[in-house]
């Protein structure tokens, strides 16, 4: 019961937050003048006509970072249960986690040595 009430509260908070944002949009609609014309709605680029498109296949320097990020994010999810019951398990948890972290670190080190961790 308590869990459901909490969940409902979270959903409610989200809805109220959205309502708040849209209430502000509504207030702007009411209070602000609106005189759009082509030059005003044109893209701003330091006072020039933009050359070319902005939505192009843009080069992401952190493509490799993103993959390592995924690995580490999942790893934290694996950590989560074990740290909660750490005190019950004791030394075994420490040894197991150490091995896990060592493997991860070796991976990170490999990526580092390969130069993946260089933003370029």
């Amino acid at each position, binding site marked *: 019961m308590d869990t459901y009430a909490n969940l409902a509260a979270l959903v409610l908070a989200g809805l109220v937050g959205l309502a708040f944002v849209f209430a502000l949009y509504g207030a702007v609609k009411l209070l602000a003048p609106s005189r759009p014309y082509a030059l005003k709605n044109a893209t701003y*680029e*330091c*006072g*020039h006509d*933009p*050359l*070319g*498109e*902005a939505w*192009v*296949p*843009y*080069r*992401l*320097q952190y493509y*490799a970072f993103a993959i390592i990020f995924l690995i580490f994010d999942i790893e934290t999810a694996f950590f989560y249960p074990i740290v909660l019951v750490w005190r019950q398990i004791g030394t075994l948890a420490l040894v197991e986690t150490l091995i896990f972290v060592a493997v991860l670190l070796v991976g990170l080190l490999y990526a580092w040595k*390969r*130069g*993946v961790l*260089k933003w*370029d």
Partner: protein
Amino acid sequence: MIEDHPRVGRLQKDAVTESIVLNMGPQHPSMHGVFHMQLELSGETILAARPVIGYLHRGIEKLAEHRTYAQCMVLVDRLDYISQYCNEWAYCRAIERLARIEVPERAEWLRTMYAELVRVTSHLMWFGSVGLDLGGWTPVIYAFIPRERIFDFFEATTGSRLMPNYLRFGGVKEDVDPAEMEALHAYLAKDLIDALDEFDGLVTGNEIFLSRQRGLAPMTVDQAHAWGVTGPMLRACGSTRDLRIDTPYGVYDRLDWESCTDTRGDALARYSVRMREMRESAKMALQCIERMPAGEVRTKVARVLRPPEGEVYVRHESTRGELGFHIVSDGSPKPYRFRVRSPAFMNVSSLPHLCAGAKISEFFAIFGGIDNVMAEIDR
């Protein structure tokens, strides 16, 4: 490098990305005026940079041909509005050499003092804008505090904070009140040095700042000569060229000072040269106040000057580098040809070479180190 790996490299080549062309400026917060760079970016890396200038081209050189020599002083002030006294002095020297006008002793001392003071304020402005470019708001506000104090002196003695119109052919406009000089002496000797120490504490030793400047955009002396780079930028690559020593003028040969140089040639070297130059200039201004002889400050010159026919080129160490005035006279009260060799223009010509391959955020660190003034570049 990941690209060197046979498989990964191929993958990256297969992923087709496009470069975007970005107009940076003229309406941009850290373009120090209305500079316009067309950047071609791949990701955040600059592939090519094309500077576009002329947004502040006011035609000063042409306007000057329609004004008398004295009236040109107004334009010369506005040529480089951060180092006005240096400009005025260079122009006066050109005309004085052309018309063979003697300058009284005290006037030379006064000119030297003002030129060094303006070097301090100019470098303070540069320091503030470097801080602003690198994302800090505090340095620029702090830099304006000593600047305002020196401007107070300028205003009290010459009548204007920025555009003094103070130097005259054959001297300066009027003598300076000794009380003002006393007050300035007290300020330069202690408070300014304290402020500079504070800047060092705030920025110079800051690891974030060092990580952004160290080893960035190195330049060798040969490159600098090839691009016509002068001034603190040139001295930062190891050259000792300083017109105040090489072709002495004013009273520089009688002052106890040394030219600041660095051998690293990177952005940090340019920074440290300018920071040390501020202290040297303050020291020189102090010596000028202490040793200044009494006497006349202005020789009598016809109100409408008609220099004899001929031409002259004068080199002057402005705050940004070698400022040259080439003036051709045809004997009339107006210059026949008025041409300025602007240091900032030459310095900024090195920008496309320096920033190719840099990141966007590195670009601003490089650009700040050049210390350009658009008014002088565009004229």
